């Protein structure tokens, strides 16, 4: 963090106005808030203004957004300077590289990425490269720690980077291309980089295991027994175990562990047999 100031006057544009499309979007965004609370829309509007203006918020843009929301300019200024996500200086035309420098990325080599930025863009963050195409900054955690180190450009993240990868990405941006986003080391999202270590059995995926669970068989027995009116005798065992899985006696872990497993599987089974049984709808979802 450092003191954040508006760009010097000579850099500031004369004026700012939303495009028709953004204006329509902004009106919708404002309408989300109750009357008299329009000021709540200031952050999305400022962000949209930043996107429209090529990645930074100018002083006229702040006034424009303030006028739109009936806010004093100082109130917009406070917000724009508070959130580091708002750029107050012009950024690179082609890319503004945000290198994550928080612990996981730092341990995995973010400093090397920053060296690349310093070499290729500018020795200091928030400065434009000589041709004005690039700029860079160090940011706090962007939330892809599994794929550290990473950079963010506009709305995309580029993960699992080596300095060479970053060079390639910068080259691609320089050519005006859009490099492939996501992990750069061939890994699928945040899957283990060493390959899958669990659930590797092929039968899990070919359908041959469906209905083969041991717990499932037990549950079916219990259901059948209840239907036959023998409930008190047979049912308590799984039900009690499911309701209160206490710390099992250390001497004999296996039998105590089994009933909850049965219950869990029974629940899973109930889900798959939904059409025939009334079940509570999953939270937040639609009951069919």
């Amino acid at each position, binding site marked *: *963090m450092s*003191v954040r100031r508006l760009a010097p006057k000579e850099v500031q544009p004369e004026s700012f106005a939303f495009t028709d499309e953004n204006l329509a979007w902004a009106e919708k965004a404002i309408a989300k808030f109750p009357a008299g609370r329009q000021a709540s829309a200031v952050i999305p509007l400022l962000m949209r203004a930043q996107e429209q203006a090529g990645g930074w918020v100018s002083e006229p843009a702040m006034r424009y957004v303030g006028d739109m929301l009936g806010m*004093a*300019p*100082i109130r917009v200024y*406070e917000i724009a*300077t508070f959130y580091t996500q708002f750029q107050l200086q012009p950024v690179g035309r082609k890319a503004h590289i945000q290198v994550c420098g928080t612990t996981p990325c730092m341990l995995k080599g973010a400093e090397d990425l920053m060296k690349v930025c310093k070499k290729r863009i500018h020795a200091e963050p928030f400065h434009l490269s000589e041709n004005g195409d690039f700029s860079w900054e160090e940011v706090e955690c962007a939330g892809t720690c599994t794929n550290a180190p990473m950079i963010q450009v506009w709305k995309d993240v580029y993960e699992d980077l080596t300095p060479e990868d970053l060079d390639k990405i910068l080259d691609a941006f320089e050519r005006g291309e859009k490099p492939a986003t996501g992990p750069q080391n061939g890994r699928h999202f945040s899957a283990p980089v060493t390959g899958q270590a669990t659930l590797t059995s092929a039968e899990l995926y070919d359908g041959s295991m469906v209905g083969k669970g041991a717990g499932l068989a037990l549950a079916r027995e219990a259901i059948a027994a209840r239907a036959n009116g023998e409930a008190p005798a047979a049912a308590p065992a799984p039900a009690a175990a499911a309701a209160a899985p206490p710390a099992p006696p250390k001497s004999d872990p296996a039998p105590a562990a089994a009933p909850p497993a049965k219950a869990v599987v029974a629940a899973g089974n109930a889900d798959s047999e939904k059409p025939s049984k009334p079940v509570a709808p999953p939270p937040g979802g639609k009951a069919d």
Partner: protein
Amino acid sequence: MAKIIVDDIEVEVPAEYTLLQACEAAGAEIPRFCFHERLSIAGNCRMCLVEVKGGPPKPQASCAMNVRDLRPGPNGEPPVVLTKSPMVKKAREGVMEFLLINHPLDCPICDQGGECDLQDQAMAYGVDTSRYAENKRAVEDKYIGPLIKTSMTRCIQCTRCVRFTTEVAGVSELGAIGRGEDMEITTYLEAAMSSELQGNVADLCPVGALTQRPYAYHARPWELVKTESVDVMDAVGSNIRVDTRGREVMRVLPRLNEDVNEEWISDKTRYIWDGLKTQRLDRPYVRVGGKLKAASWPEAFAAIAAKVKGVAGNRIGGLVGDLATVEEAFALKSLLASMGSANIDCRQDGVKLDPALGRASYVFNPTIAGIEQADALLIIGSDPRREASVLNARIRKRWLAGNFPIGLVGEHVDLTYPYEYLGAGPDTLTDLVGEGTFAATLKGAQRPLILIGQGALARADGAAILALAARLAVSVGAVKDGWNGFAVLHTAAARVGALDVGCVPGANGLDAVAMTNPGGVDVLFALGADEIDIAPGAFVVYLGTHGDRGAHRADVILPGAAYTEKSGTYVNTEGRVQLANRAAFPPGEAREDWAVLRALSDVLGQRLPFDTLAQLRAALYAAHPHLARIDHVEPADAAGVIALAGAGGTPERAPFRAAVTEFYLTNPIARASAVMAECSALASSRLAAAAE
């Protein structure tokens, strides 16, 4: 009410009290920086930490926790707050250490030194050493106007100034930009603040970050003699403290009076003091051959006596200016009466107010504090923000509390709160008496307030407008038992007092306009009358303080004492009688005005029957007993308003004009002040920019 135990003392306080208020009720002192009784709660300085039992087991910010937030003990014991426990002591020391990490140690060159909250509290609650060896943060100073000097490195980010300007002054100009260690207080693009109450942020600032620019490096608080007095810049009668060093007024600060100004004063009140030192009349002058020549008191008196001799009583007149005390007005009236003249007037602006209509017809009947009880407001021909800034803050406070419809008839002005604009002139007012949605709003209100400004009354048809306003007040039920919502807002500090002692033309007397017209009177005694042009012809004796318009027109100038240099009574717009005390002495040969009038009466052979101020006051109180009740508002008989409502008159159609156009230049002292001139230039450039 809830019971709570503070340091073994059980107190019963309202449940919505904060712990800080509850602790104060129990007599425990809680240090604080960001908390202020009249501002919203921020809870960001953490200095007010206390230990609680019945709440979270950690130090709690007592300003931001209510008594009702605490649970009783297991057996129903009241919750316990500890303000002297080891935990609290350690917490305060810790907070103080954090605050001082970045605070410069420049107390010896800081203007706040000696009256600094941080200094005092560091002494009381801090530790004596610092463990901090790193570099301190430095912050660029900001320009926020000609009145407030900034030293932003000293700022501890309490945000009192931001909350004051936004909430009380009603202008969102100051803000806190950046965050964390880099948070800085500034205005948008470092523009000068436009509020007329901005000087108060220097009082609110608990450190030396915001100080008074005109006072910078002038004096130390312990060198100053403090005199409690009353302000005369407007008719609010703000309570002030005048700080003097030797003969010089060094600064003016507000004094707490919940009924008048709470603890705010306007910038004109606060920064006027440099005008007390310039353009002063420090010796008598006599016009010889068209030019004013310095003279001695006997020469000046002789010149007056020579002129007055042989002039008939009804050819002599007197004007009472806007800054005159009641004693002076009374003395001048007595003097003129003894010379057989009924020509006296205090209404330089020609306002159509008359004591004959009853006192209720010219005072702010609901009282200033009463604004908070009102539930609807109609403003007629007034711009209270400029005519009475502190009173306007009170209206804003009431508006912030909610359910307060406000209508305005007159000029379209920014009052810092929204209002329904009803119209520009008397036509709208006439409509309101009959129908109109806002009339219905007023009728529906329990305690409607009708505020009439001088702009509506200082015109030829002023009497008709006053009657119309009274009729409106009566028709909407603003005048009833226990509530008189008929409020006349004055702009001149001396006006109500002068009206109280009857400084208006007697039988066959001439009013201010008639006296100052060509051929009006032969000899005119102008007691600080600077707001009126006196036509050539009359022999003008000017008794005043500054070389302003009145002195330029004068044939004899008698130097008087300004409001900080004499003891005198002022009656504010609500009819509150207040005493101004002498804080300094008049310059040179200038004397207190009542004494000058007394001496003059002797020379004129009409010796006034008092030799001391006490005798003068005794005579005054005998004639007008209510003036003896200092700091008291004598409720006026509402029958006056009801009688007034019956009066007729046809108003003209011209729109109302504001009584105060140049807020910073309304009186001779202000016009002599360089600070006020700068503020005025700034305000007019802002106005020009807004007009573009």
